[in-house]
């Protein structure tokens, strides 16, 4: 780490590096004396609650709210350019995600769908754009939070529609399964519908963003190391190639950012739909 760090920023004290693998560590915006000296027992609350990653999530939320309020402000029957953009995004979520998957009850869940997609999308895009260059959901706490909310939403929707026991029966005993297989099926269904779903939902989002950011780091930092630190000339050429390839990785990460936001949203709708479906 040390030879890599020198070309960029001289680091003071025990503060973690602010780039490279260190970018996964949250840094307090107003570090206390305890934090700068690595005194685990005496961190101030601001060291934990007021960090760069928390701030970027807050900014993301503010941008999402600002965007939706902006496009929905002063709406006309005949849309202008601004309203057209808003309606395009809104219609994609409303018609191709909510309505197609959830059927005629879709308007109940539409706010959730719209909110979760835009919140995840903007935070994923933070990984590719200046100022942050870090996808918020590669901090797993955020991903677990949204996965938990979706878990609560689809179970809540199912319980509200069918009642607790009827819902549990529907989710664990598929129609048309022979009685002899039930001892096998029921634990599998419980595992699948109540445990695996939220875990995979959170993990998928986190892992895609985490791995994507890590690959970008490998290409950029590795390329930088090869170009500036490593001696043999062939390594410098390889470093330059890696830097160029990093752009391709960035493009791929843009796709992943949009795709993961979409997948998270579609799966949320899908889970709600399976919880409230008449037959499944």
């Amino acid at each position, binding site marked *: 780490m040390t030879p890599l760090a020198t070309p960029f920023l001289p680091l003071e004290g025990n503060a973690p590096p602010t780039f490279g693998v260190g970018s996964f560590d949250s840094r307090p915006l107003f570090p206390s004396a305890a934090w700068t000296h690595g005194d685990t027992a005496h961190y101030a609350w601001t060291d*934990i*609650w007021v960090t760069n990653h928390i701030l970027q999530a807050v900014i993301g939320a503010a941008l999402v709210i600002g965007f939706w309020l902006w496009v929905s402000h002063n709406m006309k029957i005949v849309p202008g350019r601004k309203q057209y953009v808003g309606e395009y995004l809104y219609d994609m979520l409303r018609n191709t995600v909510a309505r197609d998957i959830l059927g005629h009850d879709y308007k109940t869940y539409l706010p959730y769908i719209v909110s979760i997609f835009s919140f995840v999308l903007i935070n994923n895009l933070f990984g590719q754009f200046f100022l942050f260059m870090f996808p918020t959901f590669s901090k*797993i706490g955020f991903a677990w939070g949204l996965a938990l909310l979706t878990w609560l939403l689809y179970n809540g929707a199912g319980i509200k529609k069918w009642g607790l026991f009827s819902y549990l029966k529907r989710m664990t005993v598929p129609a048309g399964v022979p009685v002899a297989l039930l001892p096998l099926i029921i634990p599998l269904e419980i595992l699948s519908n109540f445990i695996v779903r939220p875990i995979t939902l959170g993990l998928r989002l986190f892992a895609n963003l985490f791995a994507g950011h890590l690959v970008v780091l490998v290409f950029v930092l590795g390329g930088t190391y090869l170009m500036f630190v490593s001696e043999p000339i062939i390594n410098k050429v390889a470093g330059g190639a890696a830097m160029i390839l990093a752009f391709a990785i960035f493009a791929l990460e843009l796709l992943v950012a949009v795709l993961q936001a979409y997948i998270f949203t579609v799966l949320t709708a899908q889970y709600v739909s399976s919880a409230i479906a008449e037959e499944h």
Partner: protein
Amino acid sequence: MTLLEGTGPLGPLLPDHPSEFIVGIVLFFIILGVVWKKVVPTFESTYAARADAIRGGIDRAEQAQAEANAALERYREQLNTAKDEASKIREDAKNAGAQIQAEMRTAAAAEAARIVQAGHVQVDAERAAAREALRRDVGGLATTLAEKIVGEALTDDARSQRTIDRFIADLDAAPQQA
């Protein structure tokens, strides 16, 4: 050294601290609240208004169509009425013409009959007058003739023949005197 170090066996699969978990949920609820209370209702009411406007337009077009149809129907009816009326007038005129013709014919026939009648009356009167004149004259003529015949020698056939001829000639001249 950093907050990440020393986390449990799950490594990056557990958050450094519940702070990000809680902040994520809170931020999501704030977004959800705004989207739920403001954004979605605004979009949906705009869509409803748009659907209404489109449906209203269709309704108006349908109404205009119905009005046009009604007007067409009315004009057609009026046209039919006018046609009927025209043909009725034509019929009436024809009837009136025929009637006038018949009346004229009757009047003419009456006039002719009257003229004929008058002629007859005149002829009858003249005939009666002639007959009367003839009746009056015949006696005198016969007497005159007889005197003439007697006055001449009855034996002389030639003379009597001449007398008769003379009488006839007188007789022929007589109407011109009368």
